[in-house]
């Protein structure tokens, strides 16, 4: 869609068009998603003959990246709410719509992909107005593919989105809504000028950090960078100050003039809070430093990624990393492996628990292996989320069953239409992060969608279940689970590991234990036969080549004590399967 707007307004010549111009990462193009918000300035001459400057910020849609959405919204006057004409309103459509309304923006509903055979714009328009109000006939119908409706959309944008309402004569206030690191130019900030003006060469001050710098270069993205002398009220562009360390620029900070300072900073943002934690370990222990450097570099462009060193007896030295969600986790891991040529083992994702110790102090536990002993703790609290699930009404039963199984608390039901309903539940985050979404999709033939937001902590009867391989506890497999589910969990885990761990030279017992008490046991029986029946004079060269290939093709394994464990076992052990 963004591509089509760029093309229609002449920002990109037809001959330069390629798919997903604003999604510059390979991963974004491959997966057809947006991970980083991107900004571009468009010039548009309306049907009224007037020239308009439109600043477009393209945001991600996935729940993991709602933080990117929220801070982009703070830099806008209006929001274009795009819904797929075939899929209809999704949970994240709802979440993003509410966010835009809360931010006081003019929301312009539009339905994309009306060229699809399965498109049902009438139904989707109905659903959209049920959320944001208005007239279903006023919802713009368009097709980014054919270009149909794009002109109408642009007209609606200039008609409905109010012009920026800043004060040109007031001291400079510009909101930093994004930043990234460029190897040649250092930190590049994306800013929106709210009051006053920002000029090249101006001495500026970051209000939160209190640092003074010079605006060495300012400009706009069209989408290529184009340096300008001045950015005025309402304009969106980039700012370069020569700062090389990304941590010295805080997204959400306000830029003002170093001498003529604004009194009040603009409302900023909360730091993004990781929802999910996972350990990342190099398969080859010697790559630890390489991993550290890769994480440092990745963080330059992804401030939401947090990490700290972690030591595992089973996996050696690595990092405990915090992610916004599972997709974020998957993407970070893939980028590390791909862009930094690393071979990683990821441990099962976990959430952060608050543990009240016997001395009354409260500690945050991001890794099950750090959980204090039962004698040292009074209680464990786990994070909850408010989950919004949008589903065709016929799946409400199976979804309620799933949510109840996951210790969820059933809340409101809100009908968007006679066929679609919004369910509002409170569920422990730990029950959501791993396979909940997959299960939800499979129980609803893919029709349900999910969005969630943090909803505080609650005390729960939680225990740590350890997994022992060949009699040795493997810290990377430990998990915090509800007491009532511990036996089932232990049984499932040992059963899955028995299938995931290949047979070895000796029997490998797999046990699950709470404290010292074994709650389930399985055994991977030793390989008994691994031999070529015939190897005579005519077979030697061929067998040699065959065995050589087998050795090289052997799956990536991690030695855990004396046991070879496939890398994927650390995460796959917790994944839903077809059983």
């Amino acid at each position: 869609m963004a591509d089509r707007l760029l093309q229609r307004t002449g920002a990109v010549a037809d001959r330069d068009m390629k798919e997903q111009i604003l999604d510059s990462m390979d991963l974004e193009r491959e997966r057809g998603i947006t991970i980083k918000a991107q900004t571009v300035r468009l010039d548009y001459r309306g049907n009224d003959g007037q020239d308009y400057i439109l600043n477009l910020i393209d945001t991600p849609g996935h729940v993991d990246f709602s933080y990117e959405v929220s801070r982009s919204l703070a830099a806008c006057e209006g929001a274009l709410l795009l819904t797929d004409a075939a899929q209809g309103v999704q949970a994240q459509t709802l979440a993003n719509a509410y966010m835009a309304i809360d931010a006081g923006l003019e929301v312009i509903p539009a339905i994309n992909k009306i060229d699809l055979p399965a498109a049902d714009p009438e139904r989707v328009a109905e659903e959209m107005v049920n959320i944001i109000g208005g007239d279903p006939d006023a919802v713009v119908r368009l097709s980014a593919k054919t270009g149909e409706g794009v002109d109408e959309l642009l007209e609606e944008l200039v008609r409905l989105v109010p012009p920026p309402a800043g004060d040109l004569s007031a001291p400079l206030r510009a909101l930093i809504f994004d930043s990234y690191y460029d190897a040649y130019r250092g930190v590049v900030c994306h800013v929106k000028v709210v009051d006053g003006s920002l000029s090249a060469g101006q001495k500026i001050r970051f209000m939160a950090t209190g640092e003074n710098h010079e605006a060495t270069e300012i400009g706009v993205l069209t989408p290529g960078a184009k340096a300008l002398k001045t950015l005025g009220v309402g304009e969106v562009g980039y700012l370069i100050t020569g700062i090389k360390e990304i941590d010295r620029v805080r997204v959400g900070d306000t830029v003002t003039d170093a001498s003529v300072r604004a009194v009040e900073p603009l409302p900023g943002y909360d730091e993004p809070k990781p929802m999910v934690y996972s350990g990342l370990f190099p398969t080859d222990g010697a790559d630890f430093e390489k991993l550290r450097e890769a994480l440092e570099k990745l963080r330059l462009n992804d401030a939401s990624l947090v990490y700290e060193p972690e030591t595992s007896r089973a996996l050696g030295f690595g990092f405990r990393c915090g992610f916004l969600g599972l997709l974020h986790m998957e993407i970070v891991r893939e980028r590390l492996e791909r862009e930094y040529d690393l071979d990683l083992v990821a441990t099962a994702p976990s959430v952060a628990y608050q543990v009240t110790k016997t001395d009354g102090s409260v500690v945050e536990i991001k890794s099950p292996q750090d959980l204090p002993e039962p004698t040292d703790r009074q209680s464990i609290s786990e994070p909850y989320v408010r989950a919004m699930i949008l589903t065709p009404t016929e799946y409400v039963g199976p979804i309620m069953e799933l949510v109840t199984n996951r210790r969820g608390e059933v809340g409101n039901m809100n009908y968007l239409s006679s066929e679609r309903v919004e369910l509002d539940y409170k569920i422990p985050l730990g029950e959501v992060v791993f396979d909940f979404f997959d299960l939800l999709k499979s129980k609803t033939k893919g029709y349900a969608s999910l969005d969630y937001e943090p909803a505080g902590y609650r005390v729960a009867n939680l225990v740590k279940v350890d997994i022992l391989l060949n009699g040795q506890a493997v810290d990377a497999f430990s998990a915090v689970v509800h007491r009532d589910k511990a036996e089932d969990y232990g049984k499932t885990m040992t059963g899955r590991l028995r299938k995931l761990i290949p047979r070895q030279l000796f029997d490998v017992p797999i046990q699950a234990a709470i404290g010292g008490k074994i709650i389930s046991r399985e055994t991977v029986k030793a390989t008994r036969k691994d031999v070529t029946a015939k190897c005579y004079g005519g077979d030697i060269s061929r067998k040699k080549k065959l065995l050589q290939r087998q050795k090289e093709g052997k799956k990536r394994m991690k030695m855990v004590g004396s046991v070879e464990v496939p890398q994927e076992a650390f995460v796959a052990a917790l994944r839903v399967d077809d059983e």
Partner: protein
Amino acid sequence: MMSERIGSYVHVPFCSAVCPYCDFAVVSGRDDQLGRYRDAVVNEISRDDPWESLESVYIGGGTPSRMPPEMLGTIVSALGDQHGLGEGAEISLEANPEDFDAATADGLLASGFNRISFGAQSFDNKILLQLGRRHEADQIGRSVATARASGFENISIDLIYGTPGETDQSWSSTLDRAIATDPDHVSCYALTVEPGTPLGREVKAGAPAPDPDVQADRFEAADRRLSEAGLKRYEVSNWSRPGYECVYNSTVWAQGEYAAYGNSAHRFRDRTRSRNLSRLDQYLGAIEEGESAIAGSDSRLEGAEFEIDRLFVGLRRTIGVPTGPGGRSLLDSFDGQRLLAAGVIVEVDGWLRIDRPLMTDEVLRSVLALDLAGLDDDDAGT
């Protein structure tokens, strides 16, 4: 350890029909080419640089017994003329029970053969049918008795275990009946599904594949019963009465050199492994045109490679190999330590051997991964 012995292999590709599990270079319905093929082999032998006198000749196939004894005799004579045959050299022939009679046995003896290896495979007619064999169980005993009566003093039987559908009882009875023929030597092979064979295609399409755990049970049963009968295992798949180990194959496993003739035959000479053209017609054409029948050749095994090759071929023997630099390197390696701890390999009195023969490939993969950089020829095998 270079063996003093030198052997020779001759391939005879003709079969009455091709068994569904077989991935050797064989042909059926081409018996009209037998004479032409004999001439080609004799031609190839006569053109070869003379080797030192041969301690063994092994004619395998295919079904070499498809070739009349006189033709086979011509080949044996040609080998003797070109290289010389050592005193008491082992002259061995693979034969099928389906077409073995007293006249054949007498003819083979007259042609110089002193060892017969019967492709018995099973004494269960149901399994024989499943394996696509053309003989019945009763013919095996009769063939062995016929060979014995004609004067053969070294008789071997080949068996296949772990065919899907085979029961413990069927295998047990096959072992009983094999032992009852009083063989001097027995080879037992786990049925192996080779890609590209009719069996391979069936399994790929969903037919039951042999179960490795069942095959392990069968192997253990075989080892127990054969050793009780006085047949001692000397290689992964081979058992014999003392002194009846196959000389030709022992030469191969001791890294000895061997000549080879016929289509798809493999030789090892001057530390170099090479192989003949695989297809019958190509082979015949090349020889008849006076051209070389060699289709390809590995590079000469030097230093570390030669040492690794020594372990690779030698560790299949029950006795193992003198440890040497390669063995020491294996024992010191991470893989080697694991294999030792799991009781797969053991070193006793300077010999390294495999104690869990069914895990041989795991050991050999580790051997192939050894880094013996810096080892030169003088160190190898000492």
